[in-house]
């Protein structure tokens, strides 16, 4: 399978590059920038860190702009010193949308691709800015050497800001025609937005009550590429919240992702939906690599370790994480005192989960060591095991809160994107905008995207390994019943 490539940057980086590339005189221009690679299972993303502004004489501007070898060399050396790769960017002030490469542009990039890779150890990335609508296009010069050096066209360029803006390469991911099942959806935000949303690769981490609902609603709105990640099996105590899961799923020892995929497919409106499932944990190295192939992630897990991994990834690899959760507070007699649910988008420019107090890093070591499931440890601990209250009528509110964040972030209704952290209080039915800011000691939000040079928080995950072993070690009778059940489901879905 061909490896996909892409580029991602933050809003402030985009603005700085636009200032350099779109001068007031309307001429073409160029500049350099540094990037770090973020290597997923199937996609490599160049994460742009900072522009390297040209000095006088670094480029010759006439009808077309030309870069000097001195500027390229200075940029490549700066990239090498910072353990980065180099990006060569130029503008087409009159252009709109994804730009095809002209012969001279291709020749220029090709002529420096070998040299830059030689100095930095990383492929040159070429980018073009279309001035009329500020669309980006990009390619990685990652194939062949010498005269045979060649570029792999990127699939998309993502800008993570208060709104996520994506320029799509229609050659790789053509905009699908909206079908009659999506009429009401298209009427809500228009064809252009729909064509953008349905192409996004979205990962849902956690296929519990919230994750399952999120996945099937994304599928219903027409998304073509959804991955659902969870290693757990469906158990009896999940059935009061896992809408769509049945006692038969418990008896057949079905995984949560199997059920989530089944329900998502049942609700999907895309002509050819690709609902992938993964029984990995995001805390495992392979699960983490899988996550890097996505444009947006929904965090639907409550354990500290996976939340810590996702919190870090949002900043180190520029994959925004839409996060939320519910807290139910009870009186001593077990009756409900209150419930609150929160939602926020974890991304550069917004405080991280630690700063919003949605993640206690002090608990992560316990989770990594498996102590949160260790009865011996729990017996000796003073605070006991968390009770984990949740109810189906309220978990749907968490789903709604996450999806509303997602819509604001993607569609920006009325021009307003990411609303910031929100909290809904059930007892008084108040919605609060939480005034969280990044703390001075924050290890995540102020940092440049590190990509593959990030600190690795992943590792072996005993609970995931145990669950996978349990899922496969089933008697042949159950395996046979699963096959029959799958057949029946396929026939039912085929009829609908």
């Amino acid at each position, binding site marked *: 399978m061909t490896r996909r490539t892409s580029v991602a940057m933050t809003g402030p980086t985009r603005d700085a590059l636009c200032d350099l590339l779109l001068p007031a005189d309307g001429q073409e221009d160029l500049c350099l920038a540094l990037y770090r690679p973020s290597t997923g299972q199937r996609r490599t993303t160049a994460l742009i860190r900072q522009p390297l502004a040209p000095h006088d004489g670094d480029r010759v501007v006439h009808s077309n702009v030309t870069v000097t070898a001195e500027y390229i060399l200075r940029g490549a050396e700066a990239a090498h010193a910072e353990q980065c790769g180099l990006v060569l960017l130029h503008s087409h002030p009159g252009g709109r949308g994804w730009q095809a490469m002209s012969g001279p542009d291709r020749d220029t990039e090709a002529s420096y691709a070998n040299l830059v890779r030689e100095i930095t150890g990383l492929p040159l990335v070429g980018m073009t800015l279309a001035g009329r609508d500020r669309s980006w296009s990009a390619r990685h010069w990652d194939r062949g050497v010498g005269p045979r050096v060649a570029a792999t066209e990127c699939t998309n360029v993502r800008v993570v800001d208060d709104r996520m803006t994506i320029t799509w390469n229609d050659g790789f991911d053509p905009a699908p025609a909206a079908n009659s099942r999506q009429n009401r959806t298209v009427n809500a935000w228009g064809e252009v937005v729909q064509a953008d949303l349905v192409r996004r690769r979205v990962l849902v981490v956690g296929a519990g009550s919230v994750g399952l609902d999120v996945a099937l609603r994304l599928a219903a709105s027409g998304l073509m590429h959804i991955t659902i990640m969870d290693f757990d099996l469906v158990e009896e105590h999940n059935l009061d919240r896992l809408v769509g899961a049945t006692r038969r799923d418990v008896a057949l020892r079905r995984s949560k992702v199997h059920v989530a995929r089944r329900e998502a497919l049942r609700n999907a409106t895309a002509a050819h939906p690709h609902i992938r499932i993964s029984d990995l944990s995001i805390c495992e190295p392979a699960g983490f690599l899988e996550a890097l192939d996505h444009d947006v992630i929904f965090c639907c897990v409550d354990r500290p370790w996976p939340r*810590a991994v996702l919190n870090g990834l949002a900043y180190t690899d520029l994959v925004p994480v839409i996060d939320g959760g519910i807290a139910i507070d009870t009186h001593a007699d077990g009756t409900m005192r209150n419930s609150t649910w929160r939602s926020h988008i974890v991304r550069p420019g917004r405080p991280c989960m630690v700063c919003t107090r949605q993640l206690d890093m*002090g*608990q992560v070591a316990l989770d990594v060591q498996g102590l949160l499931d260790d009865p011996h440890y729990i017996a000796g601990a003073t605070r006991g095991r968390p009770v984990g209250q949740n109810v189906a009528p309220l978990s749907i509110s968490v789903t709604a809160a996450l999806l509303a964040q997602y819509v604001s972030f993607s569609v920006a209704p009325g021009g307003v994107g990411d609303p910031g952290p929100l909290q809904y209080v059930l007892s008084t039915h108040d919605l609060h905008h939480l005034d969280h800011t990044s703390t001075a*000691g924050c290890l995540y939000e102020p940092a440049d995207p590190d990509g593959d040079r990030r600190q690795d928080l992943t590792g072996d995950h005993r609970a995931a390994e145990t669950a996978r072993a349990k899922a496969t070690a089933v008697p042949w009778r159950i395996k046979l019943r699963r096959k029959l059940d799958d057949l029946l489901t396929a026939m039912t879905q085929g009829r609908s």
Partner: protein
Amino acid sequence: MGGHDAFAEQIARLGLHPRGKAGLVIYGLEPVEGARAGTVVDTAVAIDELARWPQVPPHWIHLPGDVTLARTNSRPSPRPGWMMHSRQIADWGRDAPGVAWASHVRGVLGEART
């Protein structure tokens, strides 16, 4: 930079003299309260627990067996004669990691009864 090297460097900057021994980073700390107030107490962290430092702080505090704490969930440390005590640090990520860790351990040592 992360991991146990970063941890050692950060607490060295605080004058705590870290040294590695048998899978632990051992250093000395002077509590201001409790039975050990005013004396330097050796304490340690397992190198395994420092793999994700500074993002993830360690959980277990290793102490000589003669340091007893009022309430504790403890296990034998890999260092003979020592015990490791379960202590969850609060508000991690709000201060410089080395300073926050030293302050946490100093607080735990302040609970010492002997």
